[in-house]
């Protein structure tokens, strides 16, 4: 349920169900103010819209009772809530108010969506049950299904290629992107609805073959912050995950980190110099060694930067084919498909030949024009 529709419900509820001591009915609420109240309470307490509404019912009644000169209210808060609950369940289907993935813009908001799961990632943290990419007609975003939410609910596993009606997904903002989270309060139902997802937005996934022209700082063996972040309102352990700078986390100060391996590459084909991120598995796939070996090398050299150096020596300049997902500012590698330097000489050669022909023709035309001109001059 969206804030707007919940607010509308509250306004109608108060207009029709609040009985006063003088026999009149109705307490007028300003719908815009109610929307704001819902938004504020929902964010502060991380509650879904209808939970927030139940809280506000009590608040509005209390507020009006404290206002002098207005007839007292006979209807109790419990009665109002009961009516609200009943209305809620009766109108459950109509109250479902799906938003477009591209319009998600509020951290911690509860939203409804109808999306297709276009991608599910293999490599996830223990606290995550499933993580992937979902899409609707407006675009794509990430979805995270927490392990704890799976344990504490009946929510079915997401399947790639399936379309789902998700009620009360939570919006999570991370580095400017608004992603979706499935919590135990979410309702996930497979649906037959067909979404018209365009080819590029389909999975936001495509294949690139380009040379790696830079392995940026922050590549190689890094440490990630393991601090449990207080942000999570479901009480689920969520680790910070930020790369540490000299053991220092931007959020948590000096901490113990856990090792990870990654590459922040620039892959440039002459048309675009893109930022491409290789995660743990993708990096191992590309360079031929993984975290354990990387740790060993760093240990032997007493210096973690040797790993980045080794990576540079291994890949700089090389043409690499990767399957990536587009996250606006950067591409993230889903899979390394190959490293091979074979060129298509036939195609280059043909193009060269076409040009040779084009130049020759130009000369023929010019020569013809000149000859014609000379003939005219002679005739004159």
């Amino acid at each position, binding site marked *: 349920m969206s804030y707007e529709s919940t607010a509308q419900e509250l306004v109608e509820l108060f207009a029709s169900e609040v009985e006063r001591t003088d026999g009149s009915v109705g307490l007028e609420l300003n719908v815009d103010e109610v929307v704001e109240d819902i938004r504020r309470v929902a964010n502060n307490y991380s509650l879904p819209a209808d939970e927030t509404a139940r809280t506000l019912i009590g608040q509005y009644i209390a507020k009006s009772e404290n206002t002098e000169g207005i007839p007292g209210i006979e209807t109790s808060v419990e009665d109002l809530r009961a009516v609200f609950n009943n209305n809620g369940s009766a109108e459950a289907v109509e109250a479902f108010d799906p938003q477009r993935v591209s319009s998600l813009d509020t951290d911690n908001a509860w939203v409804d969506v109808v999306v297709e799961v276009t991608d599910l990632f293999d490599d996830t943290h223990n606290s995550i049950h499933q993580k992937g990419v979902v899409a609707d007609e407006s675009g794509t975003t990430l979805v995270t299904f927490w392990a704890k939410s799976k344990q504490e609910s009946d929510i079915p596993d997401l399947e790639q290629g399936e379309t789902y009606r998700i009620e009360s997904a939570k919006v999570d903002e991370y580095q400017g992107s608004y992603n979706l989270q499935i919590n135990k309060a979410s309702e996930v139902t497979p649906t037959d609805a067909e979404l018209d997802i365009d080819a590029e937005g389909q999975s936001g996934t495509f294949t690139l073959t380009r040379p790696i*022209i830079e392995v940026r700082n922050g590549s190689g063996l890094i440490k990630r912050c393991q601090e449990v972040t207080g942000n999570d309102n479901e009480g689920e352990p969520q680790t910070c995950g930020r790369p540490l700078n000299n053991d220092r986390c931007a959020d948590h100060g000096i901490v113990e980190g856990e090792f990870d391996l990654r590459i922040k590459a620039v892959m440039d084909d002459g048309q675009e110099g893109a930022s491409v991120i290789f995660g743990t598995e993708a990096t191992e796939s590309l360079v031929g060694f993984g975290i354990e070996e990387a740790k060993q090398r760093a240990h032997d050299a007493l210096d973690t930067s040797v790993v980045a150096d080794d990576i540079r020596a291994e890949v700089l*300049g090389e043409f690499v084919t990767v399957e990536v997902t587009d996250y606006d500012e950067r591409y993230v590698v889903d899979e390394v498909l190959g490293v091979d330097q074979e*060129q298509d000489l036939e195609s280059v*050669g*043909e193009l*060269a*030949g076409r040009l040779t022909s084009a*130049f020759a*023709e130009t000369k023929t035309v010019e020569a013809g024009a000149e000859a014609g001109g000379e003939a005219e001059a002679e005739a004159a």
Partner: protein
Amino acid sequence: MYTDSNSGSDSEEQSTDQSTDADTEGINPNDRQPAKRVTVAELSDATVREQLGRDERSPKFSLLPTGERANRVLLAGTITEIEELSDQNTRARIAMPGHGDQAIYAYAGQYQPDIATQLDQIGDQFNQGQPAVRVVVIGKPGVYVPETEDGQGDPRVQISNPEAVLEVTEDVWNRHIADIAEDTFERVETMLNGEAPAGQAAADAYGIDEDGLEGYHGTGVAMLNRVFDEGMIEEAMAQGIEADTEADATPAES
């Protein structure tokens, strides 16, 4: 093809960046600029520099004779010489196949210590008898106008700000050579068709005509022939010529 709107006069040498707020051809100044693949032949002729926008910090571009603007370039060549001009300044001479004598210089100064170190290492390799080292060089071009007794000399294009000097294997290097040739040919073709994003600007600045473009084409072909099997290249070209001839029953318009 573009007609030179400066009809006949020598194009002006530009030793300072001129501001252009005309068409930006979809160049987003906030994006990282891609590295355009160029031959030394073409880059050496790209003496006109422009600045996108009026802000001092707007990206600067070299106007390529083939009708595109390049903030960053990529070359594949061999380093044939390393010279330490001073304590803080190392110069590398970069040659590309099929170019005869023509080469371009890259300079690594105090602000590119990693590159300088790398060039020094390559220099050591030379001293130990290593033949020319295959590299891929990525960087921002600059134009240097030497002062001579008669005033100003000819402007010289150089890589004054190399971002990477990558020593690569033969396979990787060959692939880059093929890429450079391909991109050069594509720009030439687009310029011939009158569709180059900076085509008019290049025509105005350099008086570039079909002969000029044919020159870059020729260098590209020479480069391919030096690096790859000449027979294979010839065969592929023949296919291209045939396809083109068949496609045009009537003479093409220039």
